[in-house]
């Protein structure tokens, strides 16, 4: 009788431990969702007022001078777009070509060395890259292109391209790797050369993966702050002239980082910065959504096959 009771006690204890662990894990899981929602809520609470405090005509004008109550966000949004699009335009061909080289051309041992090295590049802190950008890239651009300052949109785009490259290469390489051998064999057996096989069969077959790679790289580029702030010169001018790439520019992220420290909490300027945060959040959200939808489409079609 005594023995039986202790056995039941044991089971009870095991059940309680099970229950405790389960509850703990569930709490942790839900709390991470909760934190994300809190961030979103906080962002909206601090940012939305600006849309009521400042007239839309002012908010979407071309001048950003908070001290004179001019909150034109257009130069900042366009600055971010200019730098990001240029960065992707540089990183896309480089990244895809590198992925093709690593996967299709390089011998096996070189691939084993190259891939981890490329992934290490992703781990370089952006402030270090920004430092390199200020001391090496900016002077180089000033002298070779003969512009008044090396702190330009183009400099920022170069650094961002460099930062997006590891992501693009790594994801694109995986996509190329997933292309079935049957496609290559079929093309080769028809008398296509190696290059024809790669450019006409393998790369198109990996297209959705490559698009995802670019989206992820772009997501990284548009949200990047430190390196961009260090090398783009931070002048909030409308980048609409033909030479805008070689003139200073100011991005949304750099504006928030530079001004948030000195702004009075609860002021219009404060709310405006959070408003920019909302715009930035929406942009990255849209890009990630686009990337996710290409992945989803690929899955629905039964993988890359």
């Amino acid at each position, binding site marked *: 009788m005594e023995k039986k009771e202790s056995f039941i006690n044991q089971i009870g204890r095991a059940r309680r431990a099970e229950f405790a662990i389960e509850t703990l894990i569930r709490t942790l899981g839900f709390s991470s969702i909760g934190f994300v929602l809190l961030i979103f809520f906080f962002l909206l609470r601090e940012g939305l007022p600006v849309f009521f405090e400042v007239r839309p005509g002012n908010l979407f004008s071309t001048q950003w001078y908070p001290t004179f109550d001019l909150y034109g966000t257009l130069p900042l949004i366009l600055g971010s777009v200019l730098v990001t699009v240029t960065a992707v335009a540089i990183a896309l061909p480089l990244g895809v070509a590198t992925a093709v080289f690593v996967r299709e051309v390089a011998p096996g041992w070189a691939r084993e060395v190259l891939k981890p090295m490329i992934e290490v590049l992703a781990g370089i802190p952006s402030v270090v890259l920004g430092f390199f950008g200020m001391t090496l890239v900016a002077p180089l651009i000033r002298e070779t292109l003969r512009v008044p300052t090396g702190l330009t949109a183009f400099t920022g785009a170069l650094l961002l391209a460099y930062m997006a490259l590891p992501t693009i290469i790594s994801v694109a390489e995986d996509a190329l790797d997933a292309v079935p051998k049957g496609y*290559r064999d079929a093309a080769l057996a*028809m*008398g296509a050369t190696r290059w024809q096989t790669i450019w006409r069969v393998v790369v198109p077959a990996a297209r959705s993966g490559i698009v995802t790679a670019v989206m992820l790289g772009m997501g990284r580029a548009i949200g990047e702050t430190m390196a961009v702030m260090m090398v783009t010169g931070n002048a909030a001018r409308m980048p609409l002239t033909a030479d805008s790439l070689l003139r200073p520019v100011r991005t949304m992220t750099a504006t928030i980082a530079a001004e948030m420290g000195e702004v009075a909490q609860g002021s219009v300027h404060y709310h405006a910065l959070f408003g920019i945060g909302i715009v930035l959040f929406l942009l990255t959200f849209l890009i990630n959504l686009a990337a996710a939808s290409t992945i989803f489409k690929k899955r629905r079609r039964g993988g890359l096959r």
Partner: protein
Amino acid sequence: MKVRVAHLNFYYGDFLALSDISMEILDRQITALIGPSGCGKSTFLRCLNRMNDTIPCTCAEGQILLDGVDINTPETDVVALRQRVGMVFQRPNPFPQSIFDNVAFGPRVLGTHRGAGLADVVEQSLRGAALWTEVKDELDHDALSLSLGQQQRLCIARAIAVQPEVILMDEPCSALDPIATLEIEELMQRLKENYCIVIVTHNMQQAARVSDWTGFFWLGELVEFGATETVFTRPQHQLTEDYITGRAG
């Protein structure tokens, strides 16, 4: 005679996969290669268009004469060779592109046809592969939306669009259902009027049904080669008889 193989040895690294194979393959005939898994019949087939070159650490010794010219030499232009010796694979492997683009791939890559001429070649090839009537209104559809049997006929159309002289088929029906298999077999009978066909098959009834000549491979050796009727009714070797009656292999 289209292809003459003389004393062919083939190595995967140190492993001797084919030893001393000699065979004569006639034009406008179907030659079937049978034998158990791993006997080297697919390896032999892939020697004929040098597809084994894509596998590292392999080596083929001996002569393979295509129209009297040895193609098993380092100087051989394998790209040009593969235009003359096409191949159809075990699993249907159409590109994830439209039906038209699949068939047009070869002519486009080789630069043989453009514009209206290209459309003609695509139509002729699809007719040649007995697929035209089924797909003529949906040439712009994704090739992967076709059934497996249609995909395999598309692969055959794609192969003949290059206008090869020899077509190699590596177990072309093993992924297909019986009806699709029958369609491919009927197609082969029509294709042999214009092409030299070599087919590897696991299915002995298929070899007996479709082929004019049969070669029996066993552990990397060509045990018996002759007219299909003779091989299946009066085999010269005990091993062949045991295999085709199901006692060996």
